[in-house]
C-alpha cells in the first residue's frame, strides 16, 4: 500500500516534464526561423503587446511578423478583442499600443486620462468599402444609405427584384423607385470584418431608426438571403455574372477589378460621391473610416516600442496596409501621424 501511494502520480509528473521540455523546445525553433530570414547582429530586446480592434489586427499581425524577423529578440503578442476593449485595457494600464477602428470617444479618453496615462494618436490606414454591381449595369449609378437598407437590410428579406424594394424605399425616403431587374446580392459572410464595417457605416443609422420604430429586428441588420462568401474573388465573379446584381467588398479589391464590376457612387447625406483612392483618403466617400493606433506616451522611449511604431509609419510598413486589404492614408494624414509620433504630441489630434 505504501509503495502504491506515489507511483500512480508518476505519469502526471511525466506530463509536467514533457510540457516543460516542449516549452524549452520552442526557443531554438524561433531563433532558427529568425536567423533563416537573414537578420544579423540585432540586439533589440524587450516585449510589445498590441490589443484593440479586430479590424486593424491583420495589419498589426503583418507588421509584427516582419518586425519579429528583423528583431528576433523582441517578444511580441497581438490580440484583437475589439476597439472598445482596447481603450478599456489602456485605461487599466500596461498596454503600450492599442488599435481602434474609430476615433477614441470622449468618455474613453477621460478614463485613460484619469488613469494618469497620456496617449499619442496615430492614423494608420483607411477601411473603405465599395458597393458594386456588374460592369455593364447602366440602370443604377448612385445609392443612398436609405437605398442600401431597402435593398439589403433585414426588412428586404425575400426581395428578388429591385422593384420589390420600391415601397420600402419610398417609406424610408430613398432615391427610388428602382426599375425592375433581378436582385442578386453577393457580399462577405458574417465572420468578415468587411461585413461588420458595412453594417456600422452604411446600415446602422437607418436600421437603428427602424428598430426604434418597431419595424426591424434588433438582432439582424442584413437580410439572411444573400450569397455570402469569405472569398472576395467569389463575390466579384458573382456580381459580374449577374447584370443587375448588387454587392460590397473592400475598396482595394473592387478597385483592382474595375473591368468586371462597376463601383457605385454612394450618398451618405452630402450628395453622391464616387469611390476613388482620393475620395476615400479624404473621407469624402461615405463608406470609409479611419483606422487608428494609440500609443501610451510612457512607452514611447521603450526601444522596442519605438522601433515598431517607426516601422509601422515607415513607407515599408505602410505597404502592409494594402496587403491586409485596406487603403493607404493620404500623404497629409500620414505626415500628421508621423509628426504626432516624432514630436510625442499627446491627446486627440485628428
Amino acid at each position, binding site marked *: 500500500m505504501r509503495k502504491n*501511494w506515489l507511483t500512480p502520480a508518476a505519469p502526471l509528473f511525466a506530463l509536467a516534464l514533457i510540457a516543460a521540455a516542449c*516549452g524549452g523546445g520552442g526557443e531554438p*525553433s524561433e531563433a532558427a526561423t529568425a536567423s533563416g530570414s537573414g537578420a544579423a547582429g540585432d540586439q533589440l530586446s524587450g516585449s510589445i503587446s498590441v490589443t484593440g480592434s479586430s479590424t486593424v489586427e491583420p495589419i498589426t499581425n503583418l507588421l*509584427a511578423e516582419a518586425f519579429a524577423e528583423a528583431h528576433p529578440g523582441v517578444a511580441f503578442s497581438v490580440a484583437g478583442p475589439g476597439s472598445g476593449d482596447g481603450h478599456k485595457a489602456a485605461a487599466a494600464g500596461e498596454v503600450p499600443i492599442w488599435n481602434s477602428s474609430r476615433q477614441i470617444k470622449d468618455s474613453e479618453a477621460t478614463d485613460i486620462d484619469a488613469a494618469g496615462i497620456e496617449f499619442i494618436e496615430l492614423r494608420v490606414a483607411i477601411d473603405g468599402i465599395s458597393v458594386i454591381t456588374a460592369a455593364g449595369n447602366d440602370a443604377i449609378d448612385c445609392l443612398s444609405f436609405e437605398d442600401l437598407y431597402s435593398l439589403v437590410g433585414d426588412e428586404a428579406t425575400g426581395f428578388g427584384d429591385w422593384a420589390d424594394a420600391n415601397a420600402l424605399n419610398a417609406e424610408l425616403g430613398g432615391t427610388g423607385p428602382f426599375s425592375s431587374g433581378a436582385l442578386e446580392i453577393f457580399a462577405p459572410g458574417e465572420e468578415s470584418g468587411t461585413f461588420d464595417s458595412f453594417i456600422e457605416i452604411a446600415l446602422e443609422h437607418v436600421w437603428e431608426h427602424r428598430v426604434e420604430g418597431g419595424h426591424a429586428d434588433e438582432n439582424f441588420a442584413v437580410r439572411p438571403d444573400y450569397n455570402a462568401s469569405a472569398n472576395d474573388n467569389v463575390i466579384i465573379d458573382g456580381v459580374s455574372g449577374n447584370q443587375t446584381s448588387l454587392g460590397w467588398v473592400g475598396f482595394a479589391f473592387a478597385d483592382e477589378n474595375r473591368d468586371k464590376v462597376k463601383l457605385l457612387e454612394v450618398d451618405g447625406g452630402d450628395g453622391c460621391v464616387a469611390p476613388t483612392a482620393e475620395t476615400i483618403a479624404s473621407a469624402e466617400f461615405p463608406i470609409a473610416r479611419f483606422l487608428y493606433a494609440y500609443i501610451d506616451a510612457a512607452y514611447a522611449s521603450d526601444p522596442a516600442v519605438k522601433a515598431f511604431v517607426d516601422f509601422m509609419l515607415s513607407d515599408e510598413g505602410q505597404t502592409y496596409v494594402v496587403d491586409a486589404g485596406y487603403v493607404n492614408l493620404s500623404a497629409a494624414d500620414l505626415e500628421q501621424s508621423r509628426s504626432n509620433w516624432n514630436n510625442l504630441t499627446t491627446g486627440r489630434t485628428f
Partner: protein
Amino acid sequence: MLLTSPAGIATSHALRRRPGADVGGAVFKWLLIGATVFATGFLAVLLAVMIVDGWAVLSGNLWYFLTHGFSQRSAAEAGVWQGIIGSLQVALVTGVFAVPIGVATAIYLVEYAQNSRFARIVELNIRNLAGVPSIVYGLLGLVIFVKALEDFSKGATVIAGGMTLAALVLPIIVITSVEALKAVPDSLREAAYGVGATKWEVLSRQVLPAALSTILTGTVLALARALGEAAPLILVGAATGFLSFGDANVLETFTGPYTALPVLIFNFARLPGADWGVNAAAASVVILVLVLAVNGLAIYLRNRFEKQW
C-alpha cells in the same frame, strides 16, 4: 409446506413467463442501443468532417503545421506550434493549482466535515459552480488573476490563464474526489481504526491510496476539459494574433504572452477564406488527438490502479 404456499406459487409462475413477453424491456434495450449509436455516430461524423476538411493540411504539410507559429500572411504559412506549447503550459499551471486544492477540499468535506450542515452547504455550492458557464470564469479571471493578483501573475500571462482554468475545473475535481472518497467502504476505515491506527494513518495509508485511481481519473478528465476551453482564455488576454517569445527563456514564457489551441481554432475560423477553414479543421484534429491522449492516460490510470471491493 413452504413450497405449496401461495407466495411460492406466484414466484414459480413468474419464473415460467416466456422471455419474449418482456416487451417493455426489449423496447428499453433498443432505445438504449439507439442512444448509444446516435452519440457515437455523432462523434464519428464530427471527427470525419474535421479530418476531411483538414485533410489538405493533415496529409500535406502536417509537420510544418505542427512546428510553426501563427502567420497572417497566408493560411499555408500559419501553424499551431505556439498553441500546442501554450495549451500544455496552461494545463500544467491549471494542474499545479487545481489538483492540490481540489483534492484537499474533497478530503476535508468527506473525512473531516462529514455530514455537517456546513459541509452540505459547501458541497451544494460546489456542485452548482460546476454548472457555471466557462465565460463567467473568464470574467472572474480577468478581475482577480489578471488585475487584482497582477504582482503574482504579471498580467495576462500563462499563469493568469492557468489559474483561471484552475478555478473552472476546481469544482469538477472536488466532486469526483468526493465521490471517490465516499466510494471507499467504511469497513476499511473501521478495520484500520480497529487495529489502533490514528486518523492520519487511516487517511494516508488506507483511504487515499484506495481512492487514488478514481481521483486521478477525475483530475485528468478535468484537465482535458481545461485543454478545450477557448472563451475564458480569450477574455483573460490570450493572444489571438501574431505571437513571438523573443529571447525569453522557458521560465520567463510562463509570465509572458501566450496562446492556446482552442484560441487558435477560434482565430482560424473567423479569418475569411476557405484555406483558413482547412487550418481550423486541422487544428481541431490536433487538439482532439491531444485530448484523446490525456483521456487515454486517464483510462490507463484507472485500469492500472483500480481497486475491487
